[in-house]
């Protein structure tokens, strides 16, 4: 390895790394920016233009107003949320939408004048107060605009909160359950002597090679059968907890066993001589010393169960987890990227927080698993 990562190849290595990091993080950044942009801005320009002022064209119909007392109307062509925009040009017919500069007065083809100022205020003088609305075309420069509106929207009206809770209800027990079970199994495999120990250890590693996609349906059939036999609801949280636990256990046992084996043998023997029971050794000595590995697995398992959709679709029918909700949103709100981006970021936020909280442990624990 020393030759490959030697001093001479360092710049290339760094360049490659930087390229990979960019490749991986750029879509996320795009998603992040998009989730804070207004929907109409998303549709006319890419997220990378969001930080610079954007030119946008629009049309407003100044409607006829029966209650108007005079022939003069005034108001703004801009919505309140567009208050920072500057009008650059406007027109009164679709053939020539930017015939006049801002501040000029246009003569209307049917009589009357329209004055449009840069800040969007207009003044319309019309001979016929009851006439149907006058169309105003304009081009405006929009300042970079970011809004939390998308987040308010998805969190309040798209059913995201409910699915967020469901995802948490799936992911947290699905992490803690295999962690607890694997702790005992890994300790036994690492430190207790019994016939067939080596074989069992190899078997758990071998189970890691079974693809989930292959095992899912047989497991489901067995689970349904067992559920019916016991008279239990087969589409419940219990089912998905058990499924995630089963699929997570091989990695958990392997990782924890490797981590626990790294505890010096003499420490455990000293505890045994001190009169500690196996349970006491596990809880008092081995667990505190293998915390990094425990944290590493917990993070892996949490991310995996949080991001999972397949197991959730198969084992959890009426309740909808976040990933399933996102898929449904794709169907119903396919064109509204800002809604999708915000929803996706809501679902991304939890794993990101978890990862950054535990990243030190993840790296250490993962390396511990590999090195044995």
């Amino acid at each position, binding site marked *: 390895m020393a030759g490959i990562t030697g001093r001479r190849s360092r710049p290339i290595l760094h360049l490659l790394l930087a390229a990979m990091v960019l490749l991986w993080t750029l879509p996320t950044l795009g998603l992040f920016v998009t989730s804070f942009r207004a929907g109409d801005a998303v549709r006319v320009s890419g997220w990378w233009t969001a930080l610079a002022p954007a030119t946008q064209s629009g049309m407003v119909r100044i409607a006829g107003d029966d209650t108007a007392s005079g022939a003069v109307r005034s108001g703004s062509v801009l919505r309140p949320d567009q208050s920072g925009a500057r009008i650059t040009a406007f027109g009164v017919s679709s053939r020539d939408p930017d015939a006049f500069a801002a501040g000029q007065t246009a003569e209307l083809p049917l009589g009357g004048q329209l004055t449009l100022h840069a800040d969007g205020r207009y003044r319309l003088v019309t001979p016929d107060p009851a006439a149907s609305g006058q169309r105003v075309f304009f081009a405006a420069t929009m300042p970079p605009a970011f809004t939390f509106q998308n987040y308010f929207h998805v969190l309040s009206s798209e059913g995201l909160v409910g699915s967020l809770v469901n995802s948490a209800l799936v992911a947290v027990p699905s992490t803690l359950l295999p962690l607890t079970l694997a702790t005992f199994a890994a300790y036994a495999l690492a430190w207790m002597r019994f016939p067939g120990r080596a074989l069992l250890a190899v078997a758990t590693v071998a189970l890691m090679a079974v693809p989930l996609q292959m095992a899912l349906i047989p497991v489901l059939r067995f689970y349904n059968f067992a559920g019916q036999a016991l008279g239990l609801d087969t589409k419940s949280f219990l089912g998905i907890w058990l499924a995630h636990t089963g699929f997570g256990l091989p990695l958990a046992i392997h990782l924890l066993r490797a981590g626990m084996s790294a505890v*010096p043998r*003499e*420490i455990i*023997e*000293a*505890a*045994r*001589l*001190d*009169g*500690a029971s196996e349970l*006491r050794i596990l809880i008092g*000595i081995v667990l*505190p*010393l293998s915390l990094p590995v425990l944290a590493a697995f917990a993070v892996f398992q949490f991310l995996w169960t949080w991001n999972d959709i397949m197991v959730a679709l198969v084992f959890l029918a009426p309740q909808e987890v976040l990933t399933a909700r996102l898929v449904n949103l794709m169907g119903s709100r396919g064109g509204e990227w800002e809604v999708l981006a915000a929803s996706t970021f809501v679902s991304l936020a939890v794993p990101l927080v978890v990862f950054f909280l535990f990243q030190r442990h993840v790296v250490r624990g993962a390396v511990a698993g590999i090195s044995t």
Partner: protein
Amino acid sequence: MTEILFHHVSKLFGTSRAVTDFCLRITPGELIVVVGPSGCGKSTLLRLVAGLEEITSGTLMMGSVRMNDVPAAQRGVAMVFQNYALYPHMTVRDNLAFALTIARRPKPEIRAAVERIAQTLDLTACLDRLPGALSGGQRQRVAIGRAMLRNPRVYLFDEPLSNLDPALRVTTRTEIARLKERMPDATMIYVTHDQVEAMTLADRIVVMEQGAIRQVGTPLDLYARPRTEFVARFIGSPAMNLLPGTVVRTGPATTVALAQGAGVTVPIPTQPQDLGRAVRLGVRPEDLTPAGGCASIVSGRVLRTEPLGDVTLLQVAGPEGTVMARVPGTRTDLRHTDIALAADASRLHLFQDGLSLLCRDKGAGLSADH
């Protein structure tokens, strides 16, 4: 006051023998040092006593109780490990108190006991530190203290000084010796590969090789009357010189002709049938002294001198090969000179086929000592 009795104890790992037919009686309050090269089974022996390994065959008794199937925690033994085996996530105080906490002793009693031991071992200042913040010597003292707190019947030391630097090794060794003096009733088994530790600490030394006892005896007994060439070379530093020779006269004293033709008469009896047999003459470097003329055993050219201050080691190229000699004072002037070395005849050893001629009559009955 616990007597330990090994009765034909063997330990197999799969098919390889770690300890073979081990027989020994350790008297109460004795400090036994087990020495031998690495892989000779001495650590396994300790683990058998501790209950960390199962005995394959034979019987281990402590007092009048058969210990083969007694769990480690109930044997009343405490072990001090080479790498200290302290609990790294607990403070020194908790490390010391661990066994008593598990035994659910009352808190004031634990506190008092911990503080008493800390006082004894000069650890009071670091009671609330983690082991990682201690020096090697302090860590080993904590390990010893942890053993003492359990008030065991038997102490087991597994190369406790091997991880310490030489200066600390000497002071810690002295501390262990002092500790033993304060606890005359405690039976101790001390495993080491360091023969200085063995010579200075032991009441008796057990020399092991390939899982079996080669010799048991007091340090000076082993030094003066090694039963085999292995023991002869293992005890004493630098190792004993072995010079090939032939028996030319037998009787109450034996004359051996060495390669260069000099005849050496040794006060060791031989039988007439030994005449003409190939033997090896053993002489310790410290028994060789420069001498003139015919009285010499070895003569040759000094290849190297290693002055140690009080003594000088000479590497002499003689007709029998290279011989080490240890002469008093600083004698670097002897380098590249020819030298003749003599030794007191009563300090010479004779070996045939690796076995001392002194012990030959006892045959293979190594168990005679037990």
